[in-house]
């Protein structure tokens, strides 16, 4: 069984923009898979469809761990979570209260719930900020809270949408290490979108390059570099984005 299996996924927005034009993709369980591409390529649309936040056009479907996002969305939501760049949560709630709110939404009960919150606060070095309001902490802290939130239900599928966008290089590096550590510990599947190639190189076992709502290339970073005669992923990006 695939962690993610997308078949002929198309999405046309009401304004006529064709964001996805027949994307088919299989992601293995336990891999970190990157969806790369320039701005407006359709990466986030694809991720949002997997996250059940967007319904694709008729004809296509996505299965998450064997469950269709169209026919069994609620069951699928229990098994995944999402972290996106530019983290936004309830401003007047503290970091701990925000995490508690989402933990309750995923059905976690005490004492397991508070244990999980404490664990995530510790893993993401949020201890000094846990009781500060969300609008009082720095962008980096907000992003770490977003990552903590995305792991609150121990997802089997973790969706990361530009997880380090707008972050300082040192914080970005820490976040990537968090992602790698978490994946190693839990064995979950990670699907990450990024247009930052060093991130893809560091995190992803396989990548798909998307442009104009279509997959142009798919393989390991090394395979793509060889195929396109590029010395690194930046070169792959420049070649495919032409």
């Amino acid at each position, binding site marked *: 069984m695939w962690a993610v299996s997308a078949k002929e996924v198309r999405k046309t*927005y*009401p304004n006529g923009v064709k964001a996805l034009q027949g994307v088919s993709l299989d992601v293995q369980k336990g891999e970190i898979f990157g969806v790369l591409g320039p701005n407006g390529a359709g990466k986030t649309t694809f991720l*949002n469809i997997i*996250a*059940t*936040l*967007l*319904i694709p056009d008729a004809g296509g479907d996505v299965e998450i761990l064997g469950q269709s996002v169209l026919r069994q969305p*609620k*069951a699928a*939501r*229990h098994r995944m*979570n*999402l972290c*996106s760049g530019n983290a*936004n*949560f*309830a*401003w*007047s*709630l503290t970091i701990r*209260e925000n995490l*508690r*709110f*989402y933990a*309750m*939404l*995923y*059905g*976690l*009960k005490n004492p397991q719930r508070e244990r999980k919150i404490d664990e995530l606060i510790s893993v993401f070095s949020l201890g000094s900020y846990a009781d500060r309001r969300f609008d009082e902490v720095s962008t980096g802290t907000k992003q770490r809270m977003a990552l903590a*939130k995305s792991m609150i239900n121990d997802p089997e599928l973790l969706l990361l949408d530009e997880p380090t966008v707008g972050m300082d290089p040192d914080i970005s590096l820490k976040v990537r290490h968090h992602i790698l550590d978490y994946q190693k510990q839990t064995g979950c599947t990670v699907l990450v979108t990024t247009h930052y190639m060093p991130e893809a190189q560091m995190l992803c076992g396989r990548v798909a390059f998307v442009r104009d709502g279509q997959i142009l290339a798919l393989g390991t970073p090394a395979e793509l570099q060889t195929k396109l005669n590029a010395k690194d992923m930046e070169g792959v990006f420049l070649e495919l984005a032409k």
Partner: protein
Amino acid sequence: MIQRIMAFAYRDWLFARRNIFSVVEMLFWPIVGMLSIGLMGNFLKLTRDQQAFILTGAIALGTLQVTQLDVAYALLHDIWSKSVKHTFLTPTGVVEYLIGPWLIGIVRGTVVFSLLSGFSMYGFRFYLPGVVPTLVLLSGLFLTALLMGGLVSILVLQYGQKAEISAWTFAYLFILVAGIYYPATQLPSFFYHVALLIPLTYFLDYFRTFYGTSAHLSDPLLKGYGLLAVTIIGMFIGLKMSLSRARRTGVLLRLSE
């Protein structure tokens, strides 16, 4: 489901506790409304029953407005904090999404009702006709608040943030047509027939029979609760459909930006 209802109640409680506007909503406007009506009644030298009749409108309006705001705020708070997508990424359904904040709304509405009734008894010879009629009126107000808050959420999902103004206007429109300071029979014919479709009309009419004046609608409680059941079920179905449409059109994501 209980956990998710408690989650939304917990979040709404924290919002209410930390927001100075929630205190203004609970105290300032309802008390201004009650005082102005009470003083007008004194000036017009109304009988005690007439005074109680019109004060019922002011008390009901304050209670309804505060309770329905909590329900409407469920979605509005998510929009204001741009976290709509994170909420609907979870296995949350529309029922728990509204019921959680509604429970806090009931607490706040009960406080408003008690304060306004207490002040009115002290200052304007107001009296409550008994425990049962009072509980019946409160149940009608609280269930109508759930209905109105849900309708606000549907409008916001359909038309985006510009529809949020409905959160502050719906209570006034509903109660104006349901008969705020007058029996529904005083309304022009068209609006009288609209009033018959609003559950609150029947609860106000039932309650006011104890003050000797009403539109004397037949079977008010049967019709009031029956209409509430039908409209609330319809509202939840409508909200579910609106949410599905918002997922299809991308509105749900736009509300997170």
